[in-house]
């Protein structure tokens, strides 16, 4: 029975077929046929600077959000991994708690925090730093802040998982061989933890590329991302154009991640490489 060991995969295979392969094929078909084979949707996208601008904006916002998460999340993971093993589950739990709430709820929460009557404005006025409420919402800063906050747990957990793979004995070995704490970190721990960091960055980049709720609710007019355009076209039942944009989004994501792999591939090493 050649399929014997793979039999348990059949439900997953059916699910992937029905929920991913078929819709993806339909989407490609809708983008390319109208009703005959046509490139009109792609032509429309690539000849209008407004669409290209949104694509560029989406790539930049995603990269910036992923980088912000890296800057905040890597040190957090570093802190947790150096805590006594008994304390770590609690800290990880605290990192993950926000993920229990939906993105929608957390986005509305940011509206409450940053709004004219919000906590930040209240604090600023109470401190006497401003007389009038400051506009904190409906701009790029708010979008970046909220997206980074929403996605941060993913980065912490991914970095942490990579760091736990690193044998603490390696850092001790570096120390006894003459490296101070900083140099031991730079020459041994950091290179071995990069794999987790790059993975975390990539995952957050992928998730960010598809964001549309956050920019729609707390972004300004110029914070429209590709996801918002697609939602808009779907609402107008412009299926062909929406499908074409979805394909562009996918292609752009894959292309950029490929580039990241190519560049980072030279620097990252699996900490599991030299296990005896």
């Amino acid at each position, binding site marked *: 029975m050649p399929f014997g060991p793979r039999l348990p995969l059949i439900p997953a295979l059916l699910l992937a077929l029905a929920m991913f392969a078929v819709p993806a094929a339909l989407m490609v078909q809708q983008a390319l046929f109208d009703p005959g084979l046509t490139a009109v949707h792609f032509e429309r996208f690539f000849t209008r600077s407004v669409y290209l601008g949104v694509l560029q904006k989406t790539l930049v916002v995603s990269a910036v959000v992923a980088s912000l998460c890296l800057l905040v999340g890597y040190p957090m993971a570093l802190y947790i991994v150096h805590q006594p093993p008994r304390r770590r589950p609690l800290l990880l739990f605290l990192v993950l708690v926000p993920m229990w709430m939906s993105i929608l709820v957390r986005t509305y929460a940011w509206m409450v925090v940053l709004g004219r009557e919000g906590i930040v404005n209240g604090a600023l006025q109470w401190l006497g730093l401003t007389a009038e409420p400051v506009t904190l919402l409906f701009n790029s800063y708010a979008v970046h802040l909220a997206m980074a906050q929403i996605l941060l747990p993913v980065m912490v957990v991914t970095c942490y998982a990579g760091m736990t793979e690193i044998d603490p004995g390696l850092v*001790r070995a*570096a120390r*006894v*061989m003459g490296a101070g704490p900083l140099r031991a970190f730079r020459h041994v721990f950091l290179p071995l933890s990069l794999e987790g960091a790059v993975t975390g960055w990539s995952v957050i980049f992928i998730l960010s590329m598809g964001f549309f709720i956050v920019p729609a609710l707390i972004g300004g007019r110029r914070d429209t991302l590709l996801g918002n355009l697609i939602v808009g076209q779907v609402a107008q039942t412009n299926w062909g154009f929406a499908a074409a944009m979805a394909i562009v989004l996918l292609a752009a994501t894959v292309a950029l991640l490929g580039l990241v792999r190519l560049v980072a591939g030279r620097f990252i090493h699996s900490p599991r*490489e*030299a296990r*005896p």
Partner: protein
Amino acid sequence: MSEASAPVRFENVTRRFGQVVALEDFSLAVAPGEFVTLLGPSGSGKTTALNILAGFDHADAGAVFIGERAVGGLPPEKRNVGMVFQNFALFPHMSVFDNVAFPLRMRGVDKARRARRVTEALAMVRLADYAERRPNALSGGQRQRVALARAVVAEPPVLLMDECLSALDLKLREELQQEIRRLHRVLGTTVVFVTHDQGEALSLSDRVAVMESGRVRQVDTPGALYDRPASRFVADFVGRTNIVEAPAGAPGTFADIDLALDDRRVRAVSLRPEKLRRTPRDGDRRFEARVEDVTFLGAAVESRLVTRSGAVLRLSETRAGTLPPPERGQTVEIGYAPGDAVPLFD
């Protein structure tokens, strides 16, 4: 350049982990160039002592000296020691060359000299052709030889080895033991070696410190340790032995094996299996015993003997002897030189 070797001294070092006493009033002086092994079962404190010496841990009381300097307040990188770890601890993201060059890089040795000394160190462990490989492309024995080269490349005056052979199989272990002895002869470095393997300790060391429950039980040369164990624990832990108990009411008397000692404090004697013989000589103590089991061990044959009162003794004979091996169920006369019965007072 640093001196070839430095003395190491522990002075009344105590270390506790909560309620557990890992080291208790631990004192040991290692002469420059000496090879000293800390030998003990797990939990005896040997690794704690080494960690305190390396700077990974600190003493709660007492002092540690490398050379004439008290190193208690120094971080590991300032102690100028080399170290070999049980799991090799090679950096997986660096080539063999970069691994071995690491201590030199951290000490600011320039590139040309670094290359020369790495090449020398790799040649010394016979891995000159492996410089560009990654550690994961090496076998266990090769990895540990790289780790050895890395530990000695900066010519530290003191070399620490933490159970560094126990991850290897028997053949490799013996090969690496020879390698370590050769390196020690060539470099003249002071070595502090930690192991739970008494055979390894005996074959490598100038002196062995036997540890138990955070204390040193005996420090001696391998020969003295084997022939004159100071306590029941040492007699039993180092090599194989027979411990014959004196009856509770009559210390010093061992009717079973025809031995009576004047010293009334003697609670037991240790008799090595190879000191017993089936061909008693003049002046030997003699006793009769029944052969219960015979085990073939290659170069030797070991027999389990039961004395009149039921005590079990092991007899080990090389197969070069003139007598055929004993047979199960047979009663044999056993002799031994009275001086080979080592009195134990605990």
